[in-house]
């Protein structure tokens, strides 16, 4: 099968700041039209990676290829203005001394396009971001959300080969953020633009991404579709960073390769069954130390149906009423576990004793 050439390829990308390896051997391929999100905490290297692709940071090692052409490596780097990219900055960077029209048209003016072509394309871009008719306003007169749309229009009007977004929604207030998430996703799909986002908000990543790249300390921890990242995290870090989870230290008691399950013995007492990836399963032997990620939704409290796993006795430490559910903190043999119950099902107060059991499909070995 012929290898499909990717839009963007990072080969063993390395960037050092003094002694710190900000980007430590990052390998990534992004296909045309794909939307990829770099997700991670501050300092994980996601912004450095993005800015290296943009051309503001010059790599110390490795290569960056755009449309199959090398644009940067440890010795040379194509300047940003030659890369034909579009970028939306965290603070929008909308020029205050230029009107909305002049802002959006800037890239086209540099490309020396005709006046009419420019006017046409600016108008179309503004329509795409749902800001028609505001060409003559000055950025100072616009709200944050409007400025963000102008920044977006400016980025896409030049029809770049790829779009880069640096935490595009972090400066918006919560309600607007949720709305813009879906709009951004819809726009990206509509124009078929390859995009690379950077964010630390995992919910945002789950909505925006075709694939998520979870990064930590300069390295990639896992690259996968959102569903897989959430349900089947590859490491402790991914399990705790994306979504909420309870991590349990355990040792391997038995392995069932056919069903993809592992019986884990832990401080909770009786061993219980959890699931794992087939390839990881093959490397596990009885007695190996593992960690099991048990998300709140994987825990059944006072469940009625008999299941594969034993019931453990736990005591309610704290319960918080959250409207549509109750958030529980349980004391399970000295370890704190978070889980939830639907409100109308049970009324659980502090010090109540409950039975909990883990769903063997959802409990995941990381």
């Amino acid at each position, binding site marked *: 099968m012929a290898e499909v050439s990717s839009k963007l390829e990072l080969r063993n990308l390395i960037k050092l700041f*003094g002694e710190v390896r900000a980007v430590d051997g990052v390998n990534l391929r992004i296909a045309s039209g794909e939307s990829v999100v770099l997700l991670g905490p501050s300092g994980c290297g996601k912004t450095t990676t993005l800015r290296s692709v*943009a*051309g*503001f940071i*010059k790599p110390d090692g490795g290569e960056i290829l755009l449309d199959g052409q090398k644009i940067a490596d440890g*010795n*040379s*780097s194509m*300047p*940003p*203005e030659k*890369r*034909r*990219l*579009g*970028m939306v*900055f*965290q*603070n929008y*960077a*909308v*020029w*205050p*001394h230029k009107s909305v029209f002049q802002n959006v048209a*800037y*890239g086209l003016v*540099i*490309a020396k396009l005709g006046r009419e072509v420019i006017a046409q394309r600016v108008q179309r871009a503004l329509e795409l971001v749902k800001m028609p008719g505001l060409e003559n306003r000055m950025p100072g007169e616009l709200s944050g959300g409007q400025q963000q749309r102008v*920044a977006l229009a*400016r*980025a896409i009007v*030049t029809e770049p080969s790829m779009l*880069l977004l640096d935490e595009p929604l972090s400066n918006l207030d919560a309600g607007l953020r949720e709305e813009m998430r879906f709009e951004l996703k819809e726009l990206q799909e509509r124009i078929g633009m390859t995009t690379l986002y950077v964010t630390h908000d995992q919910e945002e990543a789950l909505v925006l991404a075709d694939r998520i790249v979870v990064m930590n300390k300069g390295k990639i921890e896992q690259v996968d579709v959102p569903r897989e990242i959430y349900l089947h995290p590859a490491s402790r870090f991914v399990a705790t960073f994306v979504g909420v989870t309870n991590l349990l230290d355990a040792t391997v008691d038995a392995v069932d390769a056919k069903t993809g399950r592992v019986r884990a013995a832990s401080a909770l007492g009786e061993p219980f069954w959890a699931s794992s990836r087939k390839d990881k399963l093959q490397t596990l032997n009885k007695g190996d130390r593992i960690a099991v990620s048990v998300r709140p939704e994987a825990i059944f409290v006072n469940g009625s149906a008999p299941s594969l796993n034993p019931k453990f006795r736990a005591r309610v430490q704290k319960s918080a009423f959250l409207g549509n559910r109750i958030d529980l903190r349980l004391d399970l043999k000295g370890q704190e576990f978070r889980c939830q119950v639907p409100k109308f099902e049970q009324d659980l107060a502090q010090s109540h004793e409950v039975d909990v059991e883990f769903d063997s499909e959802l409990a995941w070995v990381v």
Partner: protein
Amino acid sequence: MATTTADSGRLLSGLGRRLALGFEEFQTNMRREPVKYFVMLVAVAALAGLVCYPVYLLFEFSLFDETGKLTFSNYTAVFTRGGLVSALMNSLILAFFVPLICLLVGLPMAWLVSRTDMPGKGVVRAFAGIAFIVPSFIAVIAWIFLLAPNSGKINKLLMSIFGLDTPPIDIFSMGGLIFVESMHFYPLVFFAVTAALDNIDPSYEDAARNLGAGRFRTATTVTLPLVTPAILSGLILCILDALAAFGAPAALGFPVNIHVLTTKIYTLLAYPPQLQLAAAVSIPIIFFTALCLLCQKWWIGRTKYTTLTGKIGKAQAVELGRWRWAAFSFCFLVIFFSVLLPMTALIILSLLNTFGADIALKNMVLSNYKIFFDDTFIVWQSVKNSMKLSLATATLCVLLGIVYVWIVERTKIPGRGLVTFIVMITFGFPAVAMGVGILIGYIDVLYGSLWIIFVAYMAKKIPFAFIFMRNAIKQIGEELEEAARICGATWLRSVRDVTVPLMKTGIWVGWVLIFSLSLRELAMSVFLAQPGTEVMAVAVYIYLEEGAVENAAAISVVIALLSVVTVMLARKIAGKGTLEVG
């Protein structure tokens, strides 16, 4: 702290490695963006020529005698030769008494204007500003008019009122010099302290009053200690300016052979020039300046003085009650002696037909101003020279300032801290010392032309441009420039389309201010100028020396007016109150 040789070795090699890495990165960057680095290289070369070279020469010349032998005799001469020693003593006396008076005058004024309900606060602030804007050597002319021993108008008035035989006040004295300089420099303390007081969190004082301290006690035990850094900055500026002043000491000291270090340097440069001694006399001033600036940095760095806690509440003005008008009278007296009296006297003098004439309408003429338009006088040429020089200096300083600020704020080039340091050095140098360095450095090539004066102006004004440009660029997020690059603009274009337009206010304010300062520069111009290359301030000086005081006054009035107008213009451009000192 490295405790073993192995540790120190590791420390040094780590440092060396970082430097090497830095330079390597610099070289690769240079290859990638040639235009940008060429521009920066040219600017840095200019800096070396403007600052490093003259400074180096100053040190070199002070350490060698005429035969070219290395010696300390120049320095010992400063402390042993009678004329030099007395000049040194006088400079020290100035450096002590002027700041003292500035403190006694400026501090109460600042407190009254900023923290009390004294009437006429706006007036006081405005006139304190004018006292500083108008150059002191111009005010001196007015004081000579008023308080010269025999012909001074006030002396004559007092003698006739009190029936005295000898004139009671002689402005041509150390006392007179201290007075004139204090009246010019107290705004340094005033503005530094008002800026701090205006921003104090009022709850500090409220707490004291709440605990039972009266107004005066609160002021002295809480308010003023909180603004100690501001007071110190103002004082240090006073000390440095008092030491570096040339115009007033020259005008008041030369006729009676009272010298300070700066005027001594001037005489040492008269034919035949004793450059080595002149350099050696400059060096102590430079070191003292550096010492003062270091002290300030150390002292202020030591204690936590954050008063800007974000809560800038509307401060309760202290009610002075029956002291209101007494307070205002005090401030009015200061304004009277620092601005109203001298400026009025100056204008009157410029309108008198001869110096000694009585002040009466029949003696008032406009003919003194004719010298501006009559090209048999040097004034017209001097005005042209001043204009040319000031325009060129302001423009080029601003341009270079942008580049230097770019290097310091927008690149990671190793050693850019050094650029800041070199740019700011000349700020602390007395102008006369700088002039000596430039003279030694460029005398063969540029002497006798406007160019040498231009070099001197540039060297001394570059720190102003740097400060203004740096404040301007700090307000521009790097993302704004990056966004332009991503859209396809080259580095130079992004600077042109984004950076410079957004720095417009800072650029204009800086330009106007440097233009204004260059227009009235005296200390360097006076010995770098030749017949034909005089500037306006030098014309004033020459007329003063010749005794044509009315002509000097006429030019002075014009300079004073230009100074005030340009500063008002700068303030208007900048918005509000960004030009306060400190």
